[in-house]
């Protein structure tokens, strides 16, 4: 019997499911079952089919950062010798792992295997190498080559597809049981449906006013990251979609108690240690984040059973596109979600998010005549953010947006 039901709000479902996912992992660990740590847009379909409890260090690091619990782990990692410019999620996770590895019962259980897919960044390669080496556990990898050209090539897809078959074989050896192809088919259908449901709900931000604040979307993201292979995830997003459609009918916006005057695209990862500050400064100006790259990031749609299509979906996601692909993606988001300004997070933790920002920003300004601001921040390390700078930059952006709308 499911622990959520139709009478619950999507927010209630979200809270229950996120807690349950972690609780399941802890119970699995206590029972001696396998726990897997996975990167956030890796093919969870495989571990789900094998019944391996899969949890996500990026998600947990964001949770710790948002709860302002990150410094202990960041500092521990730095004392171990990790440079302070390494990804904050990685430092939190590696610090956590090192501090907790001798303990029996911990909130985020240590893994028996890891699964990584570098379609979002190359940092994961080194990060997961270190986890696997330090804990002496198997590492499964789906290496997704960067699409340096404007097309996702056949060769790229075939290389990724062949690794998906390798994963099946590796999991059979690790789990000492055959891979259940019927269950796999079922899980693929669930994951693909969930991806559609996620996109279906979050893309409603295109309504004016948007029924959802982009910052609320950041919260729902936990579910698509952690439970994409489970039915309850889709149930929640369908519920969210229904709720948002109701709000659209009522003309109700996503900013609590404030009228939506401006619509911005947020470029980059959330600034988790200052989520509330980044949200409130925008909200106070009547600015809602209606656009971001997140809705499409998990829109991994493919025909269940078709590993070629699955490989293509994992390969062609936003972060893995060429400069032109990434720019076009943002142009589409700005148009669809009717944004009139862009906030770019110059995220000290994420080189992949940052190093094309100048070129993307320039092209957006040149071709769409849209005002843009950037701010210095970090997805997890609270030391790399200045409230005053953010406030000033947003103020300037809003002024520019107001001028343009006159």
């Amino acid at each position: 019997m499911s622990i959520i039901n139709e009478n619950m709000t999507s927010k209630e479902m979200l809270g229950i499911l996120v807690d349950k996912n972690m609780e399941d992992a802890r119970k699995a660990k206590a029972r001696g079952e396998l726990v897997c740590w996975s990167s956030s847009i890796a093919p969870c379909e495989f571990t789900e089919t094998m019944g391996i409890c899969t949890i996500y260090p990026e998600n947990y690091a964001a949770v710790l950062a948002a709860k302002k619990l990150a410094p202990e782990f960041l500092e521990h990692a730095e004392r171990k010798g990790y440079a302070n410019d390494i990804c904050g999620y990685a430092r939190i996770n590696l610090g956590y792992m090192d501090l907790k590895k001798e303990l029996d019962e911990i909130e985020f259980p240590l893994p028996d295997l890891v699964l990584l897919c570098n379609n979002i960044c190359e940092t994961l390669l080194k990060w997961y190498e270190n986890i696997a080496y330090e804990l002496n556990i198997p590492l499964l990898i789906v290496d997704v080559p960067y699409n340096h050209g404007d097309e996702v090539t056949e060769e790229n897809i075939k290389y990724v597809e062949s690794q998906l078959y390798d994963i099946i074989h590796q999991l059979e050896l690790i789990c000492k049981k055959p891979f259940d192809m019927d269950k796999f088919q079922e899980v693929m259908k669930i994951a693909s449906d969930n991806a559609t449901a996620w996109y279906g709900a979050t893309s409603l931000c295109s309504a004016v006013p948007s029924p959802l604040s982009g910052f609320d979307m950041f919260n729902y993201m936990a579910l698509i990251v952690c439970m994409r292979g489970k039915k309850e995830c889709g149930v929640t997003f369908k519920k969210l979609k229904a709720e948002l459609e109701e709000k659209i009918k009522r003309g109700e916006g996503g900013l609590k108690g404030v009228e939506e005057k401006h619509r911005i695209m947020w470029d980059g990862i959330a600034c988790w240690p200052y989520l509330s500050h980044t949200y409130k400064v925008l909200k106070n100006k009547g600015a809602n984040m209606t656009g971001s790259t997140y809705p499409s990031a998990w829109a991994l749609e493919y025909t269940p059973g078709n590993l070629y299509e699955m490989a293509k979906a994992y390969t062609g996601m936003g972060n893995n596109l060429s400069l032109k692909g990434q720019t076009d993606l943002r142009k589409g988001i700005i148009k669809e979600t009717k944004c009139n300004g862009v906030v770019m997070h110059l995220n000290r933790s994420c080189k992949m998010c940052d190093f094309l920002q100048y070129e993307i920003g320039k092209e957006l300004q040149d071709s769409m005549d849209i005002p843009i601001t950037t701010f210095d921040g970090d997805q997890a390390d609270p030391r790399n953010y200045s409230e005053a700078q953010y406030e000033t930059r947003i103020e300037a952006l809003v002024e520019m947006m107001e001028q343009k709308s006159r």
Partner: protein
Amino acid sequence: MEINNIIDYLVKSADSPEKTIKESCKKNNKEAVGWVAPYAPEEIVYAANCIPVGIWGGQVELTKARIYLPAFACSIMQSIMEYETRGTYDFLKAVLIPAVCDTLKCFGQKWKGTCKAIPFVFPQNREAKSAEAFLESEYKYIKEKLEEILGITITEKALEDSIVLYNDYRSEMRRFVEIASNRTDIITPLIRHKIIKASYFMDKKDYLEYIKELNKRLRLMPANRSKNKRIVVTGIMLEPDGVIEYFEKYGMDIVGDDLAHESRQFRTDAPFSGRSLNSLAKRWTSHSACSLAFDPYKERIQYLVDLVNHHNADGLVIALMKFCDPEEYDVPIIMDRMKKENIPLQVIEIDQQAKSFEQINTRLQSFAENI
């Protein structure tokens, strides 16, 4: 040619990259094609009758680069970006850019020079059977792009000859670093570095002749009985020269290295496979113990221990490229292991833009005193 003349020639070649490249092109009637650090299939460029030029930045003050890259991009890419914007590389016919890290993925998309950029990817899951086929397709793409830009055809025969030459070069270089490790009175740290560096600007055929001659002559000399400390260096690169001078100042010889700029270039040969591009792909899939090639068993760590032991070295120095993720992740693990092995270790930060090296001075001085 006398040994001193060979050394002088190679050192001068390394010190004047543009002059060396232009002279090499003129002498051999070739064009120059660049490739951005750390790795590229130089053999394809060579088979296109061009001189492959390694692009590893340099000591330059940043002005325009800051527009295009945040301050936390690695120091080597900052320098390259600065040179790009100044037109330094515009005499090249094309430039190959490998996407081995997040910085280079982006870098390949934003080349500011006037010559064509050819970005490409190395597969990282090198144990996957399909990795070779994928890399062959990337190399085919590079080959076709070069053919298009240069208006030529790269024949299988030219590729085969190029691979033979490069394997010969690599084997001779391995011999060089081995012999040099016991001739440190002549092959001082700075000379060793520059001899290796000269290879990036010369026609490999010519360079190989010099190295063969140098090896022949060095081998005839007795192993030196230097009282200096014997050091192994690991990292991306050991530059600027000012940093290497401190090794000399404090009586530390560099007897072995695991630098991407130096020994990692010639550690792995291209095996014979009957198809040139496949041979080149196999070279990458068999390249090991490198921070830039996915290394799930961290073979690099054992490799470093073995390298230190092989050279009977007194210590290991990590020349840590500022803001280089792949290298930074290995540091804590190297630190742990060296501690267990009782191998003295020092970490110095490499910043190509640095003008003074006080911190490095202090660290190397205390390291030399304590080992």
